[in-house]
């Protein structure tokens, strides 16, 4: 590592970290306006145009509130829990590629903070730790509702993690790599041409079943409706974060929204071509007729924009589903995970194997 690498890495970390930190206030607004739209209400509309600045007073309120620690909690783990849930999305986003590479001064820069050769396994490994924040919160609160919430969450996360890992195996088999960067690059190839339409080799076209399973498990892993049983406000008051207030509660909310961002980025880079440009962007790039370094910079900007748009779509999808579907009952959740998703994901691996054997990819 020399100075160039250090600077490049620092810039990449900034590019990822700043939007990731601002995900929570933006999504809080999107969620409230989105729910209002779907329920025919107005939602927050007083501060700023369309209520856009509503999150600023919210943040001030969170920070300004008194932050008491109840007397009956296990102090060390009670304080540690929100931090533990916040660390996970920060770590996982490091391996998601958000643009292809460009060359400056004869040095290649990959737009991915950490290019690990374990690839998506890192996301699954670190993602599986997200449950500890919830377990610690629920257990250290010494409150039966909080404990029930964290019990539910640990069984839910274990059950759905299995199907999640198995559904990605299909993608790994099809592209024969675990590198997220290489998977995103391989999705730029052409799958087939239908007249004027060129269908790229995006994960969703070659792994439709795997995509559906992955999407479902992503909802369960981020504890979003219809799988928000750890929270379950109508039965558990607020579940695992019942005893938390002010900024500690806000940290849990930030972790939830950042987890959504990571899940959306993961979905986009596995199944929707990652940074591969959206249709039409190539022709815009041709019309601009740039060359040299300017071309590279504009190309990378377009790729990052494509990735961001795909990510935003799935963020909206999370909100959309939340205000559309009711919550699962606990036994339905378990039955669905073990008796439907797990066999389906195993079947998906088998089908993929057969298709690779007959060289349909």
């Amino acid at each position, binding site marked *: 590592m020399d100075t160039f690498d250090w600077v490049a890495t620092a810039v990449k970390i900034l590019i990822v970290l700043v939007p990731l930190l601002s995900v929570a206030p933006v999504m809080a607004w999107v969620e409230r306006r989105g729910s209002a739209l779907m329920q025919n209400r107005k939602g927050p509309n007083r501060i700023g145009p369309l209520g856009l600045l509503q999150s600023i007073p919210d943040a001030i309120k969170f920070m300004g509130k008194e932050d008491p620690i109840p007397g009956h909690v296990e102090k060390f*783990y009670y304080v540690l829990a929100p931090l533990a849930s916040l660390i996970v999305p920060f770590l996982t986003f490091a391996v998601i590629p958000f643009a292809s590479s460009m060359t400056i001064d004869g040095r290649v820069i990959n737009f991915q903070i950490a290019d690990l050769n374990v690839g998506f396994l890192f996301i699954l490994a670190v993602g*599986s*730790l997200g449950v*500890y924040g919830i377990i610690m919160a629920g*257990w250290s609160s010494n409150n039966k509702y909080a404990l029930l919430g964290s019990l539910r969450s640990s069984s839910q996360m274990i059950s759905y993690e299995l199907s999640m890992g198995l559904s990605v195996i299909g993608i790994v088999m099809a592209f024969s790599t675990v590198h997220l960067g290489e998977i995103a690059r391989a999705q730029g190839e052409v799958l087939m041409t239908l007249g004027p339409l060129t269908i790229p080799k995006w994960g969703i076209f070659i792994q439709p079943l795997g995509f559906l399973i992955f999407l479902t498990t992503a909802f369960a892993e981020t504890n979003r409706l219809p799988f928000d049983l750890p929270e379950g406000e109508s039965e558990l008051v607020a579940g695992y974060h019942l005893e938390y207030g002010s900024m500690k509660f806000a940290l849990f909310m930030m972790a939830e929204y950042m987890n959504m961002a990571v899940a959306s980025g993961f979905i986009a880079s596995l199944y929707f071509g990652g940074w591969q440009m959206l249709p039409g962007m190539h022709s815009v790039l041709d019309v601009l007729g740039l060359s040299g370094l300017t071309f590279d910079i504009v190309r990378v900007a377009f790729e990052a924009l494509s990735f961001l748009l795909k990510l935003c779509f799935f963020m909206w999808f999370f909100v959309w589903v939340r205000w559309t579907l009711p919550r699962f009952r606990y036994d339905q959740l378990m039955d669905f995970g073990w008796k439907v998703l797990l066999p389906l994901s195993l079947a998906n691996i088998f089908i993929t194997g057969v298709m690779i054997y007959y060289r349909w990819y």
Partner: protein
Amino acid sequence: MDISPVFFYSFAAVAIAFSGMVVLKKSPIASALSLVIVFFCFGGLYAMLDAHLVAALQILVYAGAIMVLFIFVIMLLNIDAPSLDTMRAGRLGRFMIIALSIGLLSLFIWAFKETTPPASVGAFTPQRIQEAGGNTRVLSELLFSEYILPFELTSVLLLGAIVGAVAIAKRRST
């Protein structure tokens, strides 16, 4: 790649400190959570040895799956410190445990001081692994070619364990 001493000693120190916490903590949940941190430090050590796959699997399997199950069971059965008091060893048992631990520790110290690393380096040096496409690829190719039989036998063993567990659970409930 050489191990950076700063990281090595900090990971090692945290691992030892939290291993002590696993034994000394009164509450089972606190012990289990300390063990998670120990696993994390091991993962860090593996990653510094360039064994990224082992590090990822260490965290995925041990910290992410097995310990979550442990904690789940502890919380579900509501095991607390007093209920463990009945399982304490007697005076003779304690003496045996301490003697065995000291014996094991001295064996480790002896092994580190007196033995030398093997003179010949194996086929998989870091450079050759890098050339073959990283250790995830190398390991999976070996598992599915040369070591396919032991690998499959291990999965049969695990399947047997699952079937056994289900059979025991079913018998008790009916």
